[in-house]
């Protein structure tokens, strides 16, 4: 068997929810352990490194704010890929992945908004401004809430999957707007200082805790996402088994 077809077979094996459940059971304890370990190191670094000469202690807020903001966008990108999986390849787990990611993404976006606000008050002198970056992230938060509401409102899972996949892909236009808002418009929010052309503009003293916390948050996302996908598969199984039980009870009556 060629390597290519082996890779395809591996991918389609994952499409089987039962195989996914087996894989989730194997990887989840490792992922959870690694997340705790990374957070322990990240939090230690966050509180032991020096404060900034201008921001003082408030630089420590960045070690939560920046990873949460990154994750809020990454989570939506995962949902957009899943939406493609639903519409193009009809992958059975794609809708499960998108649905499970929405509440996690909403939580990270909420965290990015709140911690940003708590940094903004002492540094900018205001909790909130309607500049392009803050507004576009607020719109992202509303989109997560809208998608969660839509998923709950529709009874038919197949139809809900298609409608929310289309909506997710339409909403994806907001992600580049968030990323480049600080360059396209004159915003109070500063431009990118880690992922930018010409390399990071941050001192290694601050970059170390930031990167460790970013990896910790990413691992937290994957751990929670896999666990939430597993829950969603179980939820669908319960629904189909109940329907089956009702049908067979109806036949007997």
């Amino acid at each position: 068997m060629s390597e290519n077809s082996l890779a395809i077979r591996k991918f389609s094996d994952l499409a089987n929810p039962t195989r996914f459940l087996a894989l989730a059971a194997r990887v989840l304890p490792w992922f959870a352990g690694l997340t705790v370990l990374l957070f322990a190191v990240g939090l230690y670094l966050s509180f032991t490194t020096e404060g900034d000469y201008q921001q003082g202690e408030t630089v420590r807020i960045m070690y939560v704010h920046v990873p949460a903001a990154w994750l809020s966008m990454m989570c939506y990108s995962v949902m957009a890929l899943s939406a493609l999986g639903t519409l193009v390849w009809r992958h059975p787990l794609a809708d499960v992945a998108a649905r499970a990611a929405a509440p996690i993404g909403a939580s990270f976006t909420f965290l990015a908004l709140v911690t940003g606000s708590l940094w903004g008050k002492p540094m900018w002198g205001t909790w909130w401004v309607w500049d392009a970056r803050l507004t576009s992230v607020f719109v992202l938060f509303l989109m997560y809430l809208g998608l969660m509401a839509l998923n709950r409102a529709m009874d038919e899972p197949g139809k809900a999957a298609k409608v929310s996949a289309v909506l997710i892909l339409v909403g994806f236009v907001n992600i580049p707007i968030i990323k480049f808002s600080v360059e396209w418009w004159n915003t109070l929010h500063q431009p990118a200082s880690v992922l930018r052309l010409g390399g990071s503009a941050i001192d290694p003293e601050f970059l170390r805790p930031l990167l460790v916390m970013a990896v910790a948050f990413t691992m937290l996302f994957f751990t929670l996402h896999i666990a939430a996908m597993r829950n969603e598969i179980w939820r669908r199984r319960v629904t189909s088994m109940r329907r089956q039980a009702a049908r067979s009870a109806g036949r007997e009556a």
Partner: protein
Amino acid sequence: MMTHTAYVLASYGIATITVCALVLWVWTDGRARRRELRALESAGIRRRSAQAGDVP
């Protein structure tokens, strides 16, 4: 007027509460679904694929 430390503590406090709430929600949701599945299986209800002798 809050001190800088208070803003930092408020940020980490809210982050801890949000992450803990999220973990707790995923964990309790999983437990509840597992309980429902066990109850259905003990009532003798099997999924069609399981009845056909396919992967359990």
